[in-house]
């Protein structure tokens, strides 16, 4: 799988990222490349800088130094308004929890990105319903996140992240709060859909069995990439 990384230009590339939270360094010169349609796992111990790396790549956080290039654009130089738009149109995010609005039903949560993009309520609901069905949670469409199981809520989150047809999905410990069986369902749903739609996935996890769903693995230690983490 590492073969195609040499052929084409990467979809998203970070070079020499450094980022310090207060006085704690989170990233010290991390470089990562993500290719179109590729599923990349970023692993490492707690505090190794995994989440900060994801935040920098997704344009949520601006790195102190280094560059993030997405499709030829320097994300680290874009104004916040453009970044927000990009996150809405080209990226999808799945966190461990918290990305669903607690007061909205599953259907409205998934429809939200479409409404933001200007779709009508009916059209947004129709497409949101299709995605819920795809992830096997259509039966829960009228429920609010607090009324669903963790696994169901995460599948709704996946639907919300994928409903706009993003180029990249950023998943930060998407199975972190789930038991292994629910985690497996969420991961295979994510991987299948991403492969079908040729969506690239940046997957943050500390769990090797979750990382094994990816095509490739990058290991972080103390805010930098461990050499030879890549499968030979």
């Amino acid at each position: 799988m590492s073969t195609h990384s040499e052929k084409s230009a990467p979809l998203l590339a970070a070079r020499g990222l450094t980022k310090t939270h207060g006085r704690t360094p989170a990233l010290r010169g991390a470089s990562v490349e993500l290719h179109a349609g590729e599923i990349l796992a970023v692993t490492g111990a707690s505090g190794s800088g995994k989440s900060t790396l994801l935040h920098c790549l997704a344009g949520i956080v601006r790195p102190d130094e280094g560059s993030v290039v997405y499709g030829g654009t320097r994300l680290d130089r874009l104004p916040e308004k453009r970044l927000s738009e990009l996150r809405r149109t080209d990226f999808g995010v799945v966190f461990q929890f918290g990305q669903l609005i607690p007061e909205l039903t599953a259907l409205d949560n998934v429809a939200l990105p479409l409404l933001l993009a200007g779709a009508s309520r009916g059209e947004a609901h129709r497409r949101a319903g299709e995605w819920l069905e795809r992830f096997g949670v259509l039966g829960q469409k009228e429920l609010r996140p607090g009324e669903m199981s963790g696994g169901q809520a995460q599948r709704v989150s996946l639907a919300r992240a994928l409903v706009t047809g993003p180029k990249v999905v950023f998943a930060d410990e998407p199975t972190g709060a789930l038991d292994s069986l629910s985690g497996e369902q969420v991961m295979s749903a994510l991987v299948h859909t991403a492969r079908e739609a040729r969506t690239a996935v940046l997957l943050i996890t500390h769990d090797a069995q979750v990382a094994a769903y990816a095509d490739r693995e990058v290991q972080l230690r103390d805010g930098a990439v461990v050499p030879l983490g890549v499968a030979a």
Partner: protein
Amino acid sequence: MTFATSDLRTAWLLTRGSDRREWSRVALTAVGAGLATGFGLGATVLASTSGRYRVPLAAGLLDEPGTRSGVMLGLTLLLVPVLGFLSQCARIGAVHRDRRLAGLRLAGATAGQVRRIAALESGLACLVGSAVATVLFVLFLRDLTEDPPGFVWAGIALVAVAVPVLGALVSALALRRVVASPLGWVRRVRPAARRGPGAWFLVAALVLLLAGLLMTRDPFGGYATASVTVFVVVVLTCVGAVWLTGAASRLSARLLTARTGRPDVLIAAERLREDPWAAARTHAAVLLVTVVGTGFMGVRHALLRDLNEREPRMPAADMTYYTTGIDLAGAAVLVALAITLSGLAVGAAESLATRRRGLAAQAAAGVPRTVLSRALLLETALPLAPAVLLAGVGGMTIGVWYGVVVGGADWSVPYEALLVPVAVYVLSMLAAATSLPLLRRTLRPAELRYA
């Protein structure tokens, strides 16, 4: 005694180690307690004086027992918005505090200890406020009279002690669920409090109203005096407006969630549908001020009209006496409005702070800040509109009725009273908007890092 000292030490340790939000709760609680003490002391001192005095204040309004009663009632009624303000302050960092107390319980503290520690925490904050207010008040009083009699001092001491004691009692009472189920409260992230429309607040307001009426043994001087009817109208309108807030929240939420295609409206409406009474609870004091304010403007209109007619036949000193009375009442309404709006701003800020992680996640997912800001304002705007309208109508009724009583066939419509509900609505929106800078800070990705 060792019990008490160890609890005091724990309370102090917890207060010292708490974060900025807890400190702001302590500070705002102290301010609220200070205001309560100030108004309470004023009313008490007035109640303990009888007969005629010469008080070099407010154009001689405090000289006569009759008008003194009016001022006293006004001061007592000012406690209502103060209570509303304090109840908003108690919400600051409430989730965090409840978890911490439940943690104490898990660590082996008895239910009694937890209650005492919590009571001490808020009691201390109230004590600071009450002490400062008492000292200032006594200095002010010494300026006015050489030597107040002993029972005045007793009254002052009583109020100064009662405020912190009541604060401690109320917070101990509010914690009974935390004490009862420590595990449940550690795990639960959002307290699902869905009580009625601020029942406690209404009860407290009624009690204060009755107390005020009892304290004013002497009838009001001057014009047609305070009638029970007025109070009944005020109370009924308030209850109606609070109920309407809840009902309107529920109805507008249901209609909007079914139809709207705008994400900001959708988010605001769904939040209202989830807890329609939350808005009613928060806005109860706003509605009370609207009723009283609108009514006052009507009364003022009628009184001034009447005074202007009589002016040629009246000495100038008497004229000032009456206008000062009206201005003083107006000032009291404004003070009440200011306190209420502060409470609203505090409540809006707290509601944001509680949801900060989720909001940061929304921003990370690309939901524009403008959408989140508009949703935040709509949450206040949607339920408040019909309620303020009803409150305005109620106040207007009082005003017009008073105008008819005073002026007879010669009454006129107090158009300026119509400005009150509009102004209150606009000011409430501005108060809610004060939390927008906080929203900006909340949406920073650093909030994503910790739950």
